[in-house]
C-alpha cells in the first residue's frame, strides 16, 4: 500500500511523497530514542530532537502542498475535486484543506509534529532519558496516524483525468467560525498528547514527582486553552448557523470535544496537587491517559460514523476498524502499563478533609463523574445496539444530560470559590466562609433582584443567577484578599498585586469566567422570548423590549449561492435602533439550504432574526430576544484568557526542575 502511494506520488513531482518519508522518520523516532533511554546511550537518545524537527519540516511541506492545491483548484487531487470548487471564496478554499477527512488528518499529524518539535526545542531542562522517552511516545502516536493516513486516507491520491470542476464544500461548513474551529479543537486534542507522552514516560521510568508535574502542567494548560476556545467556537457556530438559537445540543460530536475538556480540566487541577503535595500521582497519570484517550475517541467518533450525528461528515467502516485498532493499541497498551506500574507510585500520605488538596480532590471527583456521565449518555445507544445485536435502537437526548450533568456541576460550582481560599494541608473552613461573606451577600441580593424583576421566574433560574454572582464574587474576593484591597494603602496594594503569581491571576480570571458563563446560560435558557410568525411587509412583532418591523424580502446573489434576504427595522420604545437582514441561502454545489441568522449582540442580550420560506404574500419569520446570550462565550473566552495568563507565569516558563518546598502564604498556586 505504501509502495503504491510512493509510486503514485513520485510520478507526479508536484506532490512529493513526503508523508511516506515522514512515516519512516517517525518510525525511527519512535524506536531508537526509546532503546537509547533503556540502554542509557546518549547517542541514540539524541536522535529524538533532530527527528522531531525533520518530521515537522516534512509535514509543513506536505500541508503547504495540499494548501497550494486547494487554493489553485488542482482537481487532479481526489480530495480537492471532492471538496472544493473554483467558485468558492479564498478563505473557504484554505479552510477546505482541513474541511475534509484526509486534510483534517494531515492537520492532526502536523499539529502533533508541532508539539513534538516544541518539546525538542523547549525541553532542554528535561532529563535526557525523560525527553527521549517523551519524544519517542509522541512519535509512536504519529506512526499510527501517518499509517492511517497512508493506508486509508491519503490526501495526495490523484484523480487522472481530472474533472473540470469540484464538488464543493458542505455549505454549512462555509463559515468563518467553523473555518477555524477544527484547528483549535485539534490543537486541544493533540496538545493533550503531551500529557499522555509524559505520563507514559513516567510510567516506564516508574517515577512521578513534583518536577514531573511542573513539566506537564504548561503543556496541559496550553492544550486546555486551545480546546476551550475550540469548543466555544463550535457552540458559537451552532448558535448562529443552525438558526434555532440553540448553542449546545449534547450531540455526540459536541460531547466528543467536551469529554476531553472535562477530563483535561480535572487533570489541570490534579497536577497542582502532585506539584505542591507530591501525592495523587497514580490518579494524575490515569487522568493524563484518559484525557488523551478521550481525545482519540473523539476523533474516532467523528471519523468513523459509529454514532449518528448531525456532524457525521465522514463515515466509512474501513477507517473505523483502523482507528479502533489503533485506539486499542494506544489506550489498551497504556492501561496495561498503568496496571503494572501504578501500584508502585506511592504518594505522600493522607491529607486533611478540609484543605486545598482535599478541595482539589473533590473537584476531580465531580469533574470525572460529570465526564463519565456524558460518556455514558453518548455511548449508551451504541452499547444497547451492540448488546442486542442491532435490534434495539435508542437515542439519549438533552433531558438525560440536563438531568445528570447539571446536578453534578451545581455542587462543583457552589464549592468552587472555597477552594482557592483554602490553605494547603489544613484549611480553615469558618475563616474561608467568613471571607466570602460579601460574595454570598451579593449572590443573595442578585437572587432577590432576579426574583423581583422576572416576576418570580423559574426558581432554578433564580438560583442560577445567584450561583453565577457567587462565582464572580468568589473570584473577586480571592483577588481582593491577595492584594489586601480596602485594608492597605494603595502602594502596598500595587506591590502585592505585582507579587501575586500570574498563575493565581489566571485562576481568578478563569473562575470568574465560569461565573459569567453560568449567568449567560441561565438567563438565555430561562428568559428567552421567541416569536414564530408569518409576517407581511409592514407587520411588527415584539420580542423582549424590542419591536421588529418587517419591511420586506428580496432575492440576492452571493459568490457561490443565491439567497432570500429579509429586512427588519428594530426599534426600542419607538426609537429606531438598527436593521437586521437574515438570509436563507441556497447552495448549488453540493445542493443544500442554510439559514444565516441576523444576530445583533448587546450586553443585555442578543437580538436574533431568521427568515424562512415565503407563504403567499407573507414570510415565515422567527424573532428572538436572548438575554445575556453572549455572556456564555465571553465567559469561555475569559476562561481561556485565564489559562493564557497562567501560562505566562514565570514558574512555567522557567520550569525549574527542583522539588517545590512548602508554599509561603502569599505565593499560593491557585489554579
Amino acid at each position, binding site marked *: 500500500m505504501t509502495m503504491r502511494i510512493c509510486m503514485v506520488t513520485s510520478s507526479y513531482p508536484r506532490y512529493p511523497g513526503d508523508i511516506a518519508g515522514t512515516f519512516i522518520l517517525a518510525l525511527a523516532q519512535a524506536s531508537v530514542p526509546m532503546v537509547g533511554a533503556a540502554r542509557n546511550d546518549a547517542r541514540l537518545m539524541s536522535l529524538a530532537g533532530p527527528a522531531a524537527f525533520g518530521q515537522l519540516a516534512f509535514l509543513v511541506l506536505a500541508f503547504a502542498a495540499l494548501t497550494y492545491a486547494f487554493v489553485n483548484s488542482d482537481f487532479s487531487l481526489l480530495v480537492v475535486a471532492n471538496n472544493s470548487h473554483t467558485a468558492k471564496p479564498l478563505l473557504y478554499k484554505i479552510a477546505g484543506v482541513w474541511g475534509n477527512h484526509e486534510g483534517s488528518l494531515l492537520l492532526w499529524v502536523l499539529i502533533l509534529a508541532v508539539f513534538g518539535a516544541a518539546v525538542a526545542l523547549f525541553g532542554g531542562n528535561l532529563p535526557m532519558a525523560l525527553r527521549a522517552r517523551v519524544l519517542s511516545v509522541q512519535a509512536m502516536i504519529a506512526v499510527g496516524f501517518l499509517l492511517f493516513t497512508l493506508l486509508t486516507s491519503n490526501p495526495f491520491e490523484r484523480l487522472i483525468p481530472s474533472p473540470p470542476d469540484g464538488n464543493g464544500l458542505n455549505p454549512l461548513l462555509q463559515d468563518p467560525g467553523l473555518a477555524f474551529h477544527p484547528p483549535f479543537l485539534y490543537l486541544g486534542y493533540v496538545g493533550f498528547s503531551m500529557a499522555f507522552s509524559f505520563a507514559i514516560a513516567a510510567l516506564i521510568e516508574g517515577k512521578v514527582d513534583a518536577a514531573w508535574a511542573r513539566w506537564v502542567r504548561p503543556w496541559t494548560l496550553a492544550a486546555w486553552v486551545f480546546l476551550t476556545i475550540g469548543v466555544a467556537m463550535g457552540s458559537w457556530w451552532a448558535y448562529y448557523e443552525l438558526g434555532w438559537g440553540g448553542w449546545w445540543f449534547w450531540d455526540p460530536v459536541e460531547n466528543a470535544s467536551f469529554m476531553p475538556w472535562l477530563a483535561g480540566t480535572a487533570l489541570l487541577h490534579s497536577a497542582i496537587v502532585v506539584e505542591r503535595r507530591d501525592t495523587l500521582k497514580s490518579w494524575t497519570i490515569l487522568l493524563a491517559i484518559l484525557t488523551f484517550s478521550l481525545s482519540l475517541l473523539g476523533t474516532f467518533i467523528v471519523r468513523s460514523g459509529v454514532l449518528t450525528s448531525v456532524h457525521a461528515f465522514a463515515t466509512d467502516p474501513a477507517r473505523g476498524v483502523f482507528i479502533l485498532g489503533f485506539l486499542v493499541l494506544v489506550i*489498551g497498551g497504556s492501561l496495561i502499563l498503568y*496496571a503494572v506500574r501504578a501500584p508502585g507510585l506511592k504518594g505522600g500520605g493522607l491529607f486533611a478533609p478540609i484543605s486545598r488538596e482535599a478541595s482539589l480532590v473533590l473537584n476531580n471527583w465531580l469533574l470525572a463523574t460529570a465526564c463519565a456521565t456524558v460518556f455514558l449518555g453518548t455511548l449508551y445507544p451504541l452499547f444497547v*445496539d451492540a448488546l442486542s445485536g442491532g435490534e434495539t435502537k435508542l437515542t439519549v437526548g438533552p433531558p438525560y444530560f440536563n438531568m445528570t450533568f447539571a446536578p453534578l456541576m451545581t455542587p462543583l460550582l457552589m464549592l468552587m470559590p472555597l477552594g482557592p481560599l483554602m490553605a494547603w494541608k489544613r484549611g480553615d473552613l469558618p475563616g474561608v466562609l467568613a471571607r466570602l461573606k460579601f460574595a454570598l451577600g451579593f449572590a443573595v441580593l442578585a437572587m432577590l433582584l432576579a426574583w423581583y424583576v422576572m416576576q418570580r421566574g423559574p426558581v432554578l433560574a433564580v438560583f442560577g443567577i445567584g450561583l453565577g454572582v457567587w462565582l464572580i464574587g468568589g473570584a473577586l474576593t480571592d483577588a481582593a484578599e491577595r492584594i489586601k484591597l480596602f485594608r492597605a494603602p494603595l502602594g502596598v496594594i500595587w506591590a502585592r498585586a505585582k507579587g501575586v503569581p500570574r498563575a493565581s491571576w489566571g485562576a481568578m480570571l478563569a473562575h470568574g469566567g465560569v461565573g459569567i458563563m453560568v449567568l449567560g446560560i441561565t438567563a438565555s435558557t430561562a428568559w428567552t422570548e421567541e416569536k414564530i410568525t408569518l409576517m407581511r411587509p409592514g407587520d411588527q412583532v415584539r420580542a423582549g423590549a424590542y419591536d421588529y418591523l418587517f419591511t420586506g424580502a428580496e432575492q440576492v446573489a452571493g459568490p457561490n449561492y443565491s439567497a432570500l434576504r429579509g429586512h427588519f427595522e428594530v426599534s426600542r420604545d419607538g426609537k429606531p435602533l438598527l436593521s437586521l437582514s437574515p438570509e436563507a441561502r441556497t447552495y448549488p454545489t453540493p445542493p443544500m439550504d442554510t439559514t444565516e441568522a441576523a444576530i445583533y449582540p448587546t450586553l443585555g442580550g442578543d437580538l436574533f432574526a431568521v427568515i424562512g420560506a415565503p407563504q403567499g404574500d407573507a414570510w415565515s419569520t422567527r424573532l428572538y430576544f436572548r438575554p445575556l446570550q453572549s455572556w456564555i462565550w465571553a465567559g469561555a473566552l475569559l476562561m481561556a484568557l485565564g489559562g493564557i495568563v497562567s501560562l505566562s507565569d514565570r514558574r512555567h516558563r522557567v520550569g525549574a526542575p527542583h522539588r517545590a518546598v512548602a508554599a509561603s502564604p502569599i505565593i499560593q498556586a491557585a489554579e
Partner: protein
Amino acid sequence: MTLRSAIPLLLFIMLAAALFTGLYLDPRLIPSALIDKPAPTLDLPPLPGKEPGFIATDLAKGSVTLVNVWASWCGPCRIEHPQLMQLAASKKIRMVGINHKDTESNALKFLADLGDPYDTIGVDKTGRVSIEWGVYGIPETFIINGQGRIVFKHVGPLTQFDVDEKLLPAIEAAK
C-alpha cells in the same frame, strides 16, 4: 499489577468490544415495532379505477403482498418508481398501494405519467392508516405474508440494490 490498578484496563476492554460491534451496525437502520405482528386492520376507499381499494382482510388470504406507501408530491417516490414497475412486470407478488395525503387528480396524473405498478390502491386522505402502520417518512414498503403478518419493512426509496438484496429475499422467505 493489582486488581485496583487494572480496573481502567478491564473497563476499556469492554468498551472496545462494544465499539467493535458498533462499527458493523448501521445506526440509521430503524427496526419496525410491527415486524412479525399482524398488519393493522383498517380499510381504505379506492382511488378511482383502482378498485377494490385497501381491504385489510385480503392481506391474510394466503398470498404474499407488497404494500407501498406513496404520494405524487413525494420526490423519492419517483426515484423508486422504476423499481416498482419492474417488480410489477415480473408478477412475483401482489402489489397494493396506499396513496398518502394526496389529491385524486395529482395521484392519477402521477400514475399516468410514470406507469401504474399497483393491483389496487387505497386512498389515505388523512394519513390515519399510515399512522397505524407506523409510517413516518414516505416512501415506505412492507411485505405481508399469507397469514397477514408484516415480515419486512423498508424506509425510503427502493434502489435496485435494495430490491435485489433485501426485498426479493424477503419475498422468497415469506412464500
